[in-house]
């Protein structure tokens, strides 16, 4: 097996005295969709924030294609090739859809290619094209989620992190989000996905991890554990007898 695109080892991150990650280790393979499941408070978002540089890990390492990136500033991590689609989307509400996308390309210095990338994204997300001059805050929740994904793609990431992309969206929109995830994968994007919707996530993932109370408790391919067992653990945690 070759070097994984992202390799997290023994990562510890804490909020004050409380350790939210207690030595997490996992690997994301190039070109795959890897999914992270677990109950609320397991530390999934903390892991995403630590990887994106928003939280500084206390110890451990995060390697992107072999290069240590733990503890770097968020903008430096975007430059290295990791983009996070955060929970609750976080678009720039009073900027136009187009400006949101331009902000996503902030670090790039190839204006001609940026223009054609925006055209490609508009082809993938026709709704965003229709609304390109509209303020992002006026879009529906699903459209804002599309914009958030498109903005992250504007940095041309090697690895796309997605934190609960289906949260609070209607079932049909959730279907569309997962369709886009599979499309992005087909086009060669490596995706690391945090999801509450275990059923949908297991359908698209090549590999998954289960997290509980700041630790990885299981890892395997979909099918290596019965789905109802995964779902039970992902929502409820391991029942201690």
């Amino acid at each position, binding site marked *: 097996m070759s070097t994984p695109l992202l390799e997290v080892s023994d990562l510890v991150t804490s*909020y*004050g005295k409380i350790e939210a990650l207690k030595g997490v280790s996992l690997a994301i393979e190039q070109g795959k969709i890897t999914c992270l499941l677990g109950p609320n408070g397991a530390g999934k978002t903390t892991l995403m*924030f630590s990887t*994106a*540089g*928003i*939280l*500084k890990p206390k110890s451990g390492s995060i390697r992107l294609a072999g290069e240590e990136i733990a503890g770097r*500033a*968020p*903008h430096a991590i*975007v*430059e290295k090739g990791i*983009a*996070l689609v*955060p929970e609750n989307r*976080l*678009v*720039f*509400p*009073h*900027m136009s859809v187009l*400006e949101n996308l*331009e*902000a*996503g390309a*902030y*670090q790039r210095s190839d204006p001609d290619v940026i223009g054609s990338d925006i055209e490609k994204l508009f082809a993938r997300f026709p709704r965003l094209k229709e609304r390109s001059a509209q303020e992002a*805050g006026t879009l529906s929740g699903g459209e804002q989620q599309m914009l958030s994904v498109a*903005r*992250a793609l504007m*940095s041309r990431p090697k690895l796309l992190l997605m934190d609960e992309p289906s949260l609070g969206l209607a079932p049909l929109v959730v279907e569309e989000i997962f369709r886009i995830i599979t499309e992005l994968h087909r086009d060669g994007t490596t995706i690391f996905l945090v999801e509450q919707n275990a059923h949908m996530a297991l359908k698209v993932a090549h590999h998954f991890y289960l997290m509980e109370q700041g630790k990885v408790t299981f890892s395997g391919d979909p099918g290596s554990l019965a789905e109802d067992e995964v779902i039970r653990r992902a929502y409820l945690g391991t029942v201690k007898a």
Partner: protein
Amino acid sequence: MIADLVQNTLDGLAQGSSYALLAVGFTLIFGVLRRVNLSYGPAIMAGCYAATWTHLQFGAGLILLALIAIGGAVLAGAYVERLCFAPHRNTGIGTSLGSPIAAMVASFALWMQFEEAATLLLPSHLYAFPPLYSGGPLGFGPFFLRVEALVTLAAAIAICLLLAWILWRTRFGLAVRAVIESPRAAELSGINVPWVFVRVFALASAIGGVAGYLVVASHEQITPMLGMWSTLKGMLAMMIGGLGSLPGAVLGGLVLGLIEAHSQWYLGPQARDLIAYLLLFVLLALRPAGLWPVRSQS
């Protein structure tokens, strides 16, 4: 009667345009950093004292004095940013709720530091500052306007246009607007947020430096009160216009100038500040978000 009204309105707009500049700088820092910088005026004062000193030592020309006032304000602003605002940023998860207050109190401490330095270390309380223009006011029919007032008005318009161009037409402006809307989303988009803070601070201090220079050149003098005066006028105009709103800052500055000019004429110089603060209270009670508020973020 009507002639007085028009003359007072002209005077008020002229004075108000310097308030508008002070408020634009103050508001930029507040809007981007979400922090109140009480040392905003004192940093401007430091730049103006540097210009005064240069004038006394070398008798330098007006343009050079203006550049020194601006440069001095930017340097003093950088000192304030490093000490008060760099340690209390609003990015990251770990920042405590106390950090806006810690930053404000730190900037109050630096305000006192600047003011005490000016009061205690300088041999004289008041220094003369060279005027922009030594001739009399210009007559427009029955009305008069000082050349300083026209220059201040022109500078305010030019700077507002330049700032609008920077904010809506440049890459840096895109980053500034992104940080205003969501520092978290900005850093996740690859924008170096702390560096945007530093550059916004420098820009705001430079605008404040222009305002400070025009004020001392119009008054032809400088005292250690300039620091407090600049902070208060900038903050007041921002409150009138709307917290963090740049068009509001311009409007608030002009409104403040007009209120002051009219109350001074009709009620006497003692009433001037009293009326201004009274109206601020009334306005904040009736319209807490100001005259031209920022649209809600949600």
